[in-house]
């Protein structure tokens, strides 16, 4: 079975690409993912803000209380040179590139205007095959003009694309005025890949302790519906490769995403829940399904059930809602 696919110009041996998660943080698990059939890996996200924050915090605590009393002018040995920046991340890219044969996609969440491009350059220099921009500006401010957040996405994407030679993907979130317009604008800005959708930590409330809890709930196959729809709608309409994120737990789930129009299918929750070897099972299931249903390759499936090609394009739109209602009758 030909499981190969192409994503942002990268030739992948399979469409299953573990997304940015704790599993893609260490070389050991990256190796295991490759062994289990990953087509590529997206490394855990480099958070500029966190790096800056940690650096500042460390500086603060190392200096805190110094030059205050005659006996203790300082509380730490002079630190000399230590890594305050993204060194650890860049080292992981280098190590992953040496250790793996599959493409290594880095993931970046910048914070400052210069930070995005600066870090993107460093990532490219470290040898990443591609870069996924993990942008999330949530429009929470009612005073913020409509479209401003979207503009920021586009500008950042353009700047990064101009700064690096490697292909750039954008991990989108659905809380935008128009997903298709954004997708087109991002593609126009040079994004070669669009990953739908970024899943955020959603707050929960502990009613006894009166606390807000932020923890990541793993996805379930039901979560696949949202990306499935928008991939289906976008396929063939934007000049960027699509990647599906969220809710893919089985080979069958993967097939659906491919059919909707995704060139690659990201996995995260399923692997965190069931372990890295589950990747192999998903891949085997996918392969078996293709065989059973007489497909010769993954490529054959891509986009076959997108809005453009499917037998009932309106199903991707509002009519869907009506049909559901009708189905209860």
């Amino acid at each position, binding site marked *: 079975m030909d499981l190969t696919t192409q994503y942002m110009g990268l030739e992948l041996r399979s469409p299953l690409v573990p997304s940015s998660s704790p599993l893609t943080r260490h070389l050991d698990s990256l190796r295991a993912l490759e062994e289990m059939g990953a087509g590529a890996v997206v490394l855990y996200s480099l958070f500029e803000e966190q790096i800056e924050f940690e650096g500042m915090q460390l500086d603060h605590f190392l200096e805190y209380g110094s030059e205050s009393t005659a006996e203790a002018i300082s509380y*730490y040995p002079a630190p000399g040179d230590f890594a305050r920046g993204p060194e650890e991340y860049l080292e992981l890219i280098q190590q992953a590139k040496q250790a793996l044969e599959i493409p290594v996609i880095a993931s970046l969440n910048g914070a400052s205007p210069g930070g995005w491009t600066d870090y993107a350059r460093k990532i490219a220099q470290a040898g990443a095959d591609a870069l996924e921009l993990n942008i999330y500006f949530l429009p929470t401010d009612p005073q913020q003009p409509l479209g401003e957040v979207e503009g920021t996405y586009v500008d950042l994407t353009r700047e990064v694309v101009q700064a690096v030679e490697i292909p750039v993907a954008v991990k989108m979130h659905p809380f935008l005025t128009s997903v298709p317009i954004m997708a087109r604008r991002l593609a126009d800005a040079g994004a070669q890949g669009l990953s739908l959708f970024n899943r955020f930590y959603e707050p929960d409330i502990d009613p006894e302790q009166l606390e807000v809890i932020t923890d990541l709930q793993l996805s379930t196959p039901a979560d696949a519906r949202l990306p499935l729809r928008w991939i289906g709608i976008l396929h063939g309409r934007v000049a960027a490769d699509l990647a599906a994120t969220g809710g893919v737990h089985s080979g069958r789930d993967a097939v659906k995403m491919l059919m909707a129009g995704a060139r690659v299918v990201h996995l995260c929750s399923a692997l965190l829940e069931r372990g890295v070897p589950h990747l192999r099972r998903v891949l085997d299931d996918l392969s078996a399904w293709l065989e059973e249903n007489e497909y010769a390759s993954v490529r054959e499936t891509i986009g076959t059930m997108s809005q453009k090609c499917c037998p009932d394009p309106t199903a991707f739109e509002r009519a869907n809602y009506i049909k559901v209602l009708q189905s209860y009758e």
Partner: protein
Amino acid sequence: MNRPMITIDGNEAAARVAHKVNEVIAIYPITPSSGMGELADEFSARGQTNIWGTIPHVMEMQSEGGASGAVHGALQTGALTTTFTASQGLLLMIPNMFKIAGELTSTVFHVSARSVATHALSIFGDHSDVMAARTTGFAMLASGSVQEVQDFALIATAASLEARVPFVHFFDGFRTSHEVNKITAIGDEEIRAMIPEAAVIAHRQRGLDPDRPCVRGTAQNPDVFFQARETVNPFYEACPGIVQQTMDRFAELTGRSYRLFDYYGAPDAERVIVLMGSGAQAAEETAAHLAATGEKVGVVVVRLYRPFSPAALLAALPRSTRVIATLDRTKEPGAVGEPLYQDVATTMLEASGRGRLPLDQTPLVVGGRYGLSSKEFTPQMIKGVFDELAAEQPKNHFTVGIVDDVTHSSIEVDADFEIPREKMVQALFYGLGSDGTVGANKNSVKIIGEGSENYAQGYFVYDSKKAGAVTVSHLRFGAEPIRSTYLLESADFIGCHQWVFLERFDLLEKARPGATFLLNSPYSPSETWGHLQRIHQQRIIDKQLKVYVIDAYKVAEEAGMGARINTIMQTCFFAISGVLPADQAIAKIKDAIRKTYGKKGEAIVEKNFRAVDAALANMHELEVPAEVSSRLELPPVVPEHAPDFVKRVTAEIIAGRGDQLPVSALPVDGTFPAGTSQYEKRNIALSIPVWDPQVCTQCGKCSLICPHAAIRQKVYEPALLEGAPEAFKSVDYRGKEFPGARFTIQVAPEDCTGCELCVHVCPAKNRAEPRLKAINMHPQIPLREQEAANFEFFLELPEADRRTVKTNTVKGSQLLQPLFEYSGACSGCGETPYVKLLSQLFGDRAVIANATGCSSIYGGNLPTTPWTVNRDGRGPAWSNSLFEDNAEFGLGFRLTLDKQREFARELVVELAGEIGEDLAEAIVKADESSEEGIIAQRERVEALIARLRRMDSDLARRLLSVCHALMHRSIWIVGGDGWAYDIGYGGLDHVLASGRNVNVLVLDTEVYSNTGGQMSKATPLGAIAKFAAAGKPVGKKDLGMMGIAYSNVYVAQVAMGANDSQTVKAFLEAESYDGPSLILAYSHCIAHGINMGMATDSHKRAVKSGHWPLYRFDPRREREGLNPLQLDSRKPTIPIAEYMGAESRFKMLQKIDPARSRHLTELAQKQVAERWARYEYLAGRDFEPVKVGK
């Protein structure tokens, strides 16, 4: 030759050379020498090599005794070895110094000379320590400036190798060790040229070696010891000559020429001062000025003090010398005179007696004392000495720099005398420890010293508090080398970095006419004038000062710098002081910013640049009105109701006028009244906690955790609320033991440091708005007056009856009056909550031995001290002996009280007929195991005292003098981990083994906190500390288990932030146990690199991860057939990495060396698991005492 100039402090000057010319460095931290050891360790950690291309080994020992032993051993096996120390540290080295010298071993001990503790400890500089070591046979070379420290460090080493006589190379603690000055650096080539390689090889050859074995260190008998001791004479005779030759070689290499005794002043001087150390610089400067005005005065600066060379001294004196004042920076009570005086006087006597005096006449020699404990030694005082020498009968054995109104030893100083400073800019800065003022000023000194032709000097004065410490920076800049080894007498520039100082200090007293005043003001330039106190307005007008104003906090906030105002104030200084052309200076500041922050990211650099630019844009010159308009006066230093001593003495010290206090004002034996911290209102909190009675659950946690006893609770009868201030809050008490009572939690607004620990631990949430708790932080200033009145009322409310309070609960313990309050400990301190708890539970019956360290400093540093008394006048009796002997010191208390109790009981029995049989019996058989019992016995003893006073017999008087011992006394031995795990461990072990009833409280911060974070044996695996720059590779010593091994010691490991009720329980059990008790208390610390306001989270993580298991080992349980060990925490539930990852001390290693960090974390995890398994095993056994025989 163009020699590089560097701007460094004295400690660095010594450490740089010492690290270059040694192979082994064994040290132990002690102020003010710690910096030398730390630097040497850093040099080695960075891979810097000595002149032979190899990296010296630096070893931290458990004490100075240990360090000197290791030095002795390293020397005996042939290594070039050195150490750094001061004060008591040097004293602990003395036994080895005799040996090292007796064995003619080459070495140099670099000593930042510091006062030896006598009536009080003092960390500051004088020569009492080195003078105590002058009989050891070590040569002694004195440096007086940073330049000399560098030069003499090398000269001493070279001479020691040649002479085979070991050297103490000393310089004045703080004044020289901590003064930053611009000096000519010495290069490796020069060092190499100075060190005699053949002597190095010979030194190695003398090392012990089984290939050519020998025996050294024999025991000798009356037949030969004496003769053998005299064998060294030739070496000592040759030594001064060797030193001079070495100095001459040094002069050839560097152009800096020194003599054993250097003379400065008029060639035909009649009046000459002889002295050594930093004071010599000031004396030299003064003599030069006076000589230039025609005065026949001069100064002999002693370089080589031992072996003392009379010939060299005589050669240095001008023939015209008529009268000599020798100045000693030490005191030797009971001696004819101080050491230098005796040496100089003897020299004159010997020479004139033999007719070999190369002077026109035999000079009169008088001795004087000056500068003890870094007391200022100024040109006015030096002029005073010269003036005294002009008298017909100059005073002998005088003091200078103080007013001695008791034995009238002091001489007059010439207060009006001032050396002109046309070519010098002098700048004075007032800042807070936390605002970075000192750091910025050190940076400025470096910028000017290394970035321009100018010379620069910086000296920094810190107050004695750890929280809210005021710093005063004294900076001088000028075209000539700066030898003014004293604080600024006047200033061309004064910077006030904190508005609140205007309320506290007469800041502009030292401003020269026309000087510049830079003020960080929260008010606009136009408003600022109106808010200035009268005295400041007056001085500004009188002295025609130029005033510049900036709202630095606002500028910092806007530039994204948070509360860091140092760069902003530094920029303003350069812009208006004229030290350097402003443009050039600003460019240099930016260079320095790039250098400091470049690695931390462009964002931080940019932020600082923005702050620099914004500083310039937001600084405005204030238009000074012609008239004083202010009616604001500086508030009184202490309140009117303060006791006489506090008003007369303490207040003067608080106000910074302690230097003016005469001898008669001070206690003769170092005994001070208790409870003085209450009179020093420091108002350092920006925000204070405010209580919400409706939300409060009255759990007592806030009060328990407060490091400063600044939030308290009381329960009282409702009727007492009559006359309460309107804003005073009160609520019904929740608890059955005080039915119908009211309850209040009250903050001490002027004593709170704003750490927020109380808010963080508060478990109650406001249901309507859960972000609020039962206590919430609010700005202090608007609340100050109201809450101060509330607090005053609160204090007047009666204390709860100890017999009713449930002292074994957190809540109950907090209804007891803290007898440890408002200490100078750090904001959010992790030690003081335990100390305060001790004072609440047992303070009225406690005698406390306190090891030197943080707890002795916040517990006993003047001006005010926190140990206080209750309404009955009872409270902890507290004393600090030394660092190393605290357990023994406390045991001594026990021995006395046990003996006196026994004796008193014997007397009671003997006098029973007169006292009354019933009372006598009740006293002798008293059960004092409860509060009731203790109070009842107190009443009995009071009755006894009343009867004894009426009796007229020797026996009665005798009993009266010991009857206090009939009452329960709780002995507490308190100290940190540096004491308990390291320097005092031998003694602690002995005391635990003694079986006597003492309670040991170890405040375990896992590092030497007081001296700045050096590793101790309590430092955990993987933590970075000084001397463990690469992360400590071995685990923490299990002191608790060592105590448990004795089986009759009560041992508890507690962490208040993780389980406060276990802490309270452990304290009570430890105290009630009639035998030795050991409490190990997890004490978070600034040195952990955590948010101090949320430190209880660290306690929780420490316990949950298994780093700090909670347990109690109570030998009494054994008698009941129970396992004495009880684990009070659960099996680890979080990985050790989670605990470590949350503290900078561990996190730093992740950044420096991620692989090592991972490795050590894994190792730590393994150790935690193993230790837990051991504890669990021990605690899980069914306990059956072993029966001997069948």
